[in-house]
């Protein structure tokens, strides 16, 4: 029987043989985890690429933002395709955006806008997993999200702030685990800030407990643990101790705690970002990056616009009600704020969702899932702004130029973060896999 060159989850024949050969040693069922990274070879290329980005802020538009009504308007398409919104020019000649993104249009010189993102997974969970892990999802192996990979890459750092933070949490793509640590240890999951960004639960001592008293409790705890003398070799014990240490570092650091709070921000700044969840989240993300976190995901739900785009996306009912104005305010302010603080060059800002939406408006005035065409906006982190990469056809159906896959995007993101995507890691079952199986760096980003 002929079998496909690539098997389940792209195990190639040689790896397959290796997997078989390890089985008698029991290595296929490693439980306690040893991740053996081969040190990444620095990517070599012509010219000198800018220094890697130190941090990444990912704005995740959960549900799948309509490309036709935001970043890829088709004003000349027939009425059943055309957005109900007009398009407006940006600061970059020839590039137009939807009329509800005027602030973003003024930041276009910072933005590399990919209009040719394409894949074929039209479900929220599979699409989200593809975009956020850089791997086509498979039941065989649960790949870690890009944020978890960045955190894992930082695993020897003892920085006070968690390396990977999700605002408000890592629930994306319906019930998918797309933003989680996958086969990496749970320590590389995102730390969720909770539904009320700016007041992270349990970061502060309980009412009536002073720092002296908390220290006394911690000292008692240390003595109890010493008395009990449980084996320190146990992974669960080591993990648990590491989490307690990290928790106490956070509790004890006024700077770290302050990073999670918006109290120090001027009302004018808060207004500039917008008081929406997305605006608050973006401001918090900037604070956390500034304080040393490496990857902050801001999740904005509600982009699954199957109906009433004309009413739901703009502020048509009352100010602040629409998705687009709050996105515009939050995103554009984040870019200017990072720029003004000198952080934009070292911070990669990625704006995307799991897929685009159907070119034809449906009977309810909405659009359904359409993975074949979508957009990603990249800014900062050494990316050359003021350009559009790729294009869709006149109806926004398919890329006609420079298709970009989720693998390419993930590959570019990790590379920009100074991580070699070809780095090999060993899964809990002893299987060697690369951080990413495939993908090509999107050259234009640095061009």
């Amino acid at each position: 029987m002929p079998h496909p060159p690539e098997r389940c989850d792209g195990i190639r024949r040689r790896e397959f043989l290796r997997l078989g050969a390890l089985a008698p040693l029991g290595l296929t069922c490693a439980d306690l985890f040893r991740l053996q990274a081969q040190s990444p070879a620095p990517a070599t290329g012509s010219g000198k690429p800018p220094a890697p980005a130190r941090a990444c802020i990912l704005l995740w538009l959960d549900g799948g933002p309509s490309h036709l009504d935001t970043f890829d308007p088709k004003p000349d398409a027939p009425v059943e395709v055309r957005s109900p919104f007009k398009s407006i020019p940006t600061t970059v000649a020839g590039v137009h955006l939807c009329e509800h993104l005027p602030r973003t249009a003024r930041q276009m010189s910072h933005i590399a806008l990919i209009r040719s993102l394409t894949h074929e997974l039209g479900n929220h969970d599979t699409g989200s997993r593809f975009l956020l892990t850089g791997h086509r999802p498979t039941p065989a192996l649960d790949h870690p999200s890009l944020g978890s990979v960045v955190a894992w890459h930082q695993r020897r750092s003892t920085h006070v702030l968690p390396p990977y933070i999700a605002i408000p949490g890592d629930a994306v793509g319906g019930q998918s685990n797309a933003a989680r640590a996958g086969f990496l240890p749970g320590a590389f999951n995102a730390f969720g800030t909770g539904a009320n960004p700016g007041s992270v639960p349990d970061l502060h001592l309980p009412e009536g407990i002073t720092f002296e008293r908390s220290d006394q409790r911690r000292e008692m705890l240390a003595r109890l643990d010493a008395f009990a003398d449980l084996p320190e070799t146990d992974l669960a014990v080591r993990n648990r101790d590491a989490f307690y240490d990290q928790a106490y570092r956070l509790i004890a650091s006024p700077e770290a705690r302050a990073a999670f709070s918006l109290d120090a921000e001027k009302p004018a700044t808060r207004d500039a970002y917008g008081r929406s969840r997305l605006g608050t989240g973006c401001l918090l993300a900037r604070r956390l990056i500034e304080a040393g976190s490496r990857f902050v995901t801001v999740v904005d739900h509600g982009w699954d616009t199957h109906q009433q785009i004309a009413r739901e996306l703009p502020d048509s009912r009352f100010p602040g009600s629409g998705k687009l104005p709050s996105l515009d305010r939050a995103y554009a302010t984040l870019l200017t704020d990072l720029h003004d603080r000198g952080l934009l060059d070292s911070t990669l800002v990625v704006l995307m969702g799991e897929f685009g939406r159907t070119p034809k408006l449906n009977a309810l005035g909405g659009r359904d899932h359409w993975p074949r065409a979508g957009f990603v906006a990249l800014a900062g982190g050494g990316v050359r702004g003021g350009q559009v990469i790729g294009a869709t056809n006149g109806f926004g159906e398919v890329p006609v130029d420079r298709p970009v896959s989720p693998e390419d995007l993930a590959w570019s993101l990790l590379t920009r973060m100074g991580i070699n995507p070809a780095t090999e890691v060993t899964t809990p079952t002893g299987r060697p896999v690369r951080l990413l199986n495939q993908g090509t760096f999107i050259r234009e980003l640095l061009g």
Partner: protein
Amino acid sequence: MDRLLGSPEFTDLWTMRLADLLLISGKRGSERASATYHEWLRGHVAADTGWDHLARELLTAEGPVQDVGPASFALLANDPRDLAEHAASIFLGTRIGCARCHAHPADRWTRTDYHQFAAFFARIQRDNGRVTIASRGEVEDPHSGRALPPRALGERVSIASEGDRRLALAQWTTDPANPRFAHAFVNRVWKHLLGRGLVEPVDDLRPTNPATHPELLDMLARDFAGNGFHLRALVRAIVTSETYQRTSRPIPANARDDRLLSHAFLKSPDGRVLLDMISQATGVRETFADQPDVAAAVQLVGSQTPSPALDILGRCSRETSCDATAIAGGGLAQSLHLINGSTVNGRLQRGNLPRWIASSGSAGELLDTLYLHTVSRPPSAAERAAWEPRLSGANRADIAADLFWALLNAREFTFNH
């Protein structure tokens, strides 16, 4: 031993475990259907019905899901292929998903094996909350588009396509001659009790992923099948073994062993169990907004009950398999919560502690009470020497609260060792 095996807590805990396995989330079907399903399961766990009997009912049930508990199994997925993947995982500890698109890379299953297995589920209908069997409905070969007759995994002969195909599947699954059925269950119970399956992951039994102790798994599975597939007898056999009773304290020569059972592994309790442990020790029970009558987290019917404590401490979502367990050692959010959060701190000023402080004559008596209610043993002489003077001084109430807090956060309390 008999008292523990016969206790309602044993029934609660294993009902929860099996509800995790069967993904009784409360999201599929109505609330009443979930309650019926859960009640059916709990009744059988209480009665120690054989796992083969439960499997047959689950695989073949018909009728309105509101009234027939096991009929809800068919609601796990509408697509016969998805339901087949669930069934293979739950009853056979086998992952067949890869073979949906191509020959399984690490197991023997071909695409034909996969689709013929799925054909057992092709005729289930789910209308208005009623599970029935239709006279038509096929799973097609993805290449030829030809309808495939049902055939069990690893069997050569297909079975007749007419009638309720699931009856033959249930028969084949639970036949004592089918070793996978008993292996899968025994392995899961072993993992629950010892912290690691003899085969890991527990849903990935296959020849290329052998058990650490194959003879042991075979023997336990044979006994389990030979004695009517009863959970309690299996648990008894395992917990009375020398292996189960080994110390968790390693010696230098075996400290690195993570699978050969040379010493016991520490286990982090499930978040729901941990919450119940804290409630019990403090004498302050958790109340669940939408299930006011439920006294313990392990008794919750579905996985959707709002609970900020469980969101942090962790529970099986029952959306997809929870066989791959949660974070070993909790996470940062859990540590912060146990240190600063209300689950512990909200229980120190009411419930047991104020009563103990008021009723304990001496510091030693109070110390004994604190230890017995948390780590289930009296303090050692060294511990007594360390804590008694502090509890005798001024500020006794605060010191007692702090020590109680520390005991509830201690490794000895939060790990099963």
